[in-house]
């Protein structure tokens, strides 16, 4: 009798374990849902972990208002299918109520503003644990992140003073007002995610597959033409066959030229690709430590 598991089943088992640990240790956990493949995977794993009961966490979407329409349609369909509860934290509302000020200029983005909306949403709903789809292979600051990441009452991450995580024992104890960020798919790589999505035949937004789109190039990143992105006179829109490797706010998500139209095509492409996934993210290009700096103040 053989008792071996492949790497995807091993990762799945670990993530489900984390998800159940969250349900057992916290009072008001939530899933942070961006509409990207990683948060779709997290939601799918949560469904698996608790079936036939419903997912015991609401889905929270921090909405910059600058979305791909496909993302929102997909989100609403998924919420309905899983009979899940959706809570929306609106960056527009944070701007309207004066909590944050909109960035100005050609590269204006609401990425930085999301942090305030996220922290306000956590406080308002008294969430004590927010589950997210961040992976350690994405970015160097994330390589040091824990599964259970402790945040102080200001939502701050202190990379030099993290709790040791030993064996499979996760310490979710905290004081009033503090909370945790939980990363169940920490150990998955981009390729693992795609392989698993294919193995399990999980439905994804159409943006991930090749399609015709009007795009323009800014600083080496191909951005989608959109009313949310003011263009310079020198920038020229072209129609190309593209797909998105990651999906975030429309102002900072770069397209890649690709004809990959199925999950198998994408696995093939990711396995042989020559640049990292976040290479197309304008938000990471701001400085060498932009992710580390954003994480310290409470960004996901």
């Amino acid at each position, binding site marked *: *009798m*053989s*008792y*071996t*598991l*492949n*790497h*995807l*089943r*091993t*990762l799945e*088992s*670990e993530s*489900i*374990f984390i998800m*159940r*640990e969250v349900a*057992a240790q916290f009072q008001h956990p939530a899933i942070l849902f961006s509409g990207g493949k990683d948060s779709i995977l997290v939601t799918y794993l949560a*469904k*698996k*972990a*608790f*079936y*036939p*009961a*419903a997912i015991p966490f609401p889905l929270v979407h921090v909405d910059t208002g600058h979305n791909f329409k496909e993302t929102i349609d997909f989100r609403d369909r998924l919420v309905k299918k899983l009979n899940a509860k959706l809570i929306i934290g609106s960056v527009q509302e944070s701007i309207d109520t004066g909590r944050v000020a909109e960035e100005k200029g050609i590269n204006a983005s609401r990425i930085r503003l999301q942090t305030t909306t996220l922290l306000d949403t956590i406080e308002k709903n008294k969430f004590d644990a927010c589950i997210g789809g961040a992976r*350690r292979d994405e970015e*160097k*600051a994330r*390589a*040091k992140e824990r599964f259970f990441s402790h945040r102080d009452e200001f939502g701050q991450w202190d*990379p*030099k003073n993290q*709790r*040791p*995580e*030993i*064996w*499979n*024992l996760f*310490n979710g*104890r905290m*004081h009033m007002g503090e909370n945790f960020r939980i990363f169940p798919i920490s*150990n998955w*790589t981009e*390729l*693992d995610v795609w*392989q698993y999505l294919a*193995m399990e035949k999980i439905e994804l937004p159409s943006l991930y597959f090749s399609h015709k789109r009007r795009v323009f190039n800014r600083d080496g990143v191909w951005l989608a033409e959109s009313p949310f992105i003011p263009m310079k006179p020198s920038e020229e829109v072209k129609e190309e066959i593209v797909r998105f490797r990651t999906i975030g706010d429309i102002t900072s998500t770069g397209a890649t030229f690709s004809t990959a139209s199925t999950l*198998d095509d994408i*696995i*093939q492409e990711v*396995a*042989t*690709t*020559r*640049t*990292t996934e976040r*290479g197309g993210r304008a938000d990471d290009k701001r400085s060498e430590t932009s992710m*580390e700096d954003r994480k310290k103040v409470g960004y996901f």
Partner: protein
Amino acid sequence: MSEVQNSKSEVFDSKSYLNMELLRFTTAGSVDDGKSTLIGRLLYDSKSIFEDQMENIEATSTRRGETSVNLALLTDGLKAEREQGITIDVAYRYFSTPKRKFIIADTPGHIQYTRNMVTGASTANLAIILVDARQGIVEQTKRHSIIASLLGIPHIALCINKMDLVNYDESIYNKIVDEYRQFATRLKTKDIHFIPISALVGDNVVHRSEKMKWYEGVTLLYLLENIHISGDINHIDLRFPVQYVIRPYSDEFHDYRGYAGRIASGVIRPGDKVTVLPSGFTTTVKSVELDGKTFEQAFAPLSVTVLLEDDIDISRGDMLVREGNVPRQSQDIEAMVCWMGEKPLQLNGKYALKHTSKDARAVVKEIKYKLDINTLHRLTENVSIEMNDVGRIKLRTTAPLLVDSYTRNRDTGSFILIDEATNVTIAACMIID
């Protein structure tokens, strides 16, 4: 500058990944023995480096005035670390070959971070321990080996690095191997492999060295890809700690009561007679399932949901085991402790405790000795156990724990202590039976 053509480019068999296994390993070494270079070399030669990462470190190497690409920069982490040129915390790296996916727990080498080594070692299948061929076995080599052995890592790969700096001299290699073999008789880890390498040049890391024809063993990557690891898991003693109870309360699943958990060890099948601890009731497994799909058999480390024939009151912290193969039930626990707290361990101090899915409290009854982790000597006079110390202690817990010895079972044989005032994890403990 090295050629970037070495980045990923091969055609990938899109279905072979379904047969890949996962291997976790930890890397340890002292500050300058080339650990970061070795990891960079493994990533680079196994074509796991992306163009933008490569361009990034090429630019940094040039800016720093280095003559070749510094592969060590690939593992550079936080800003504070780059400023100080050291690693502060455990960093996790990932790469895969067609055979296996690898998770590297890259742990800092300096003395004060023993706690990070313990963290990285706790779930590892294998430890890579680096030795500088010019220095030979040093105190840190011994300390890292002792921690690997203490944490029950089943396999050690001792890599004798910087062979290029000693003219690939076989006698230097042999001398180090002999010395380590003598020292290793005192370790619990018995499966030890020796490989002469140069991480900087790439000898015997991924590719066989042309310079060391005298070495007849395998390369490091070959070892990582082929070492037998399915025997590392205990498939004999069924231990199923109940993590969470699934009760849908829906019309369709009105009476459904599923016990969710991750199998710590052993195998569970429908029809098995199981005993519920601590109550001691015996019942039969009705079904083992996940997401509505049933298993004919499930084994560690799968996360599953178990349904039982009889309606018994079971909650988080309970354990399903096989009748006739039960863990020890006790409130008196003796353990090796790796202390991670800033304040030293207090005799008669009270701490929160986490063991499998069970929470309890514990009081320290006795400090038996402190272990000198460079020599394995036991210190018994005026012992104080402080941060990064290892010692043997006796505890009394508020509720009975269901324990096995750590050497038999890494899951049911381990627990952590938590400071009740700060909520910080302050100790990793391994049970002695």
